[in-house]
């Protein structure tokens, strides 16, 4: 178990943080993930990687978390970061601030949209892997990704220029 915690602990924590936006809660959820994992280790049949199995447990816990809290509050004190608001000093945003703003925008997305963004762009999963992980069709994954990116584009200030030269309209036409 120590090996699992050392190997996957930080990676799971970062994914949990991206999904729930609160580091303290993410720490708790990773702890619960490992406890659930050790109690249900007999269910692991080796059809996926250990990390994917752990991540599925984590995802389930985060869904309960969102169901309980209904609304996520991005806690700046716990993350220890300063989050720049779109209307102040946008021209001075550096990469770190842009990342923070991106995480903040991520928390404003719906749970389903946030999940596909994190799985696709943070976990670098392929479409069929996301579909299997979330137990939805590939078409639904693509549709959710499309709308999630369009929504994020609206939430982020233009100065961040996350999406290159492509605008919302172009995304909408894709």
């Amino acid at each position: 178990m120590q090996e699992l915690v050392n190997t996957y602990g930080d990676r799971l924590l970062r994914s949990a943080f991206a999904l729930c936006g609160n580091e303290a809660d993410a720490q708790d959820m990773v702890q619960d993930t490992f406890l659930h994992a050790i109690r249900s280790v007999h269910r692991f049949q080796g059809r996926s990687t250990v990390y994917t199995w752990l991540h599925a447990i984590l995802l389930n816990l985060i869904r309960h978390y969102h169901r309980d809290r209904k609304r996520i509050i991005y806690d700046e004190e716990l993350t220890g970061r300063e989050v720049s608001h779109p209307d102040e000093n946008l021209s001075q945003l550096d990469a770190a601030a842009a990342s923070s703003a991106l995480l903040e925008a991520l928390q404003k997305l719906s749970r389903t949209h946030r999940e596909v963004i994190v799985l696709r762009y943070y976990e670098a999963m392929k479409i069929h892997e996301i579909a299997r992980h979330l137990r939805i069709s590939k078409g639904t994954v693509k549709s959710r990704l499309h709308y999630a990116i369009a929504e994020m584009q609206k939430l982020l200030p233009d100065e961040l220029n996350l999406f290159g030269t492509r605008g919302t309209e172009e995304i909408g036409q894709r």
Partner: protein
Amino acid sequence: MNCRRFQNRFPEYVEGSLSAGTQAAADRHLARCTSCREAVGQEQRLTQILSERLRQGTETVTLHPANRQRILTACASIPAADVDSVARLWNRFARPVGIAVSLLLIAAFLVISFFSSARVNETKEVRSDRRDIHSAASIEVSYRVPIYKFRKEGNLVVDTLSYETIVASGTLWTGNQGRVQEE
């Protein structure tokens, strides 16, 4: 492949998970379609930027040593017998034992159903009026019947005695009161 079909496979093209044939068709389409080529470039940039920024935004987050220790302590407090050994035994023996038990159950069911159906055919029958069900037993009786034959030989009357075996078969029905009837 036209633009519409390419756009349906756009994410798979960017991630490189298309089949060889579809990939070749997509490549041929991209070679002559500027707008799709630009869209692919933008998607690749988007993937790169989002991945980098999500990593940058989370890279400083690490599992607290105290939390790490809590996980290990909590995991250690779960008895090994409840987790590892049971899980290992289950993984090792569950499938063969499950298959063996299933086969035994199927075999037992087949044997029981075979004999029970034979007995039902022998002893149970529904009468045409469907009101009573009687027990029945097949019976076969054979008996010898003496046959006397007389013939005249001149002034004498000669008789001969012979036996003929008669075989009779039928069904005996047991009524509600346990009486035996013959049909």
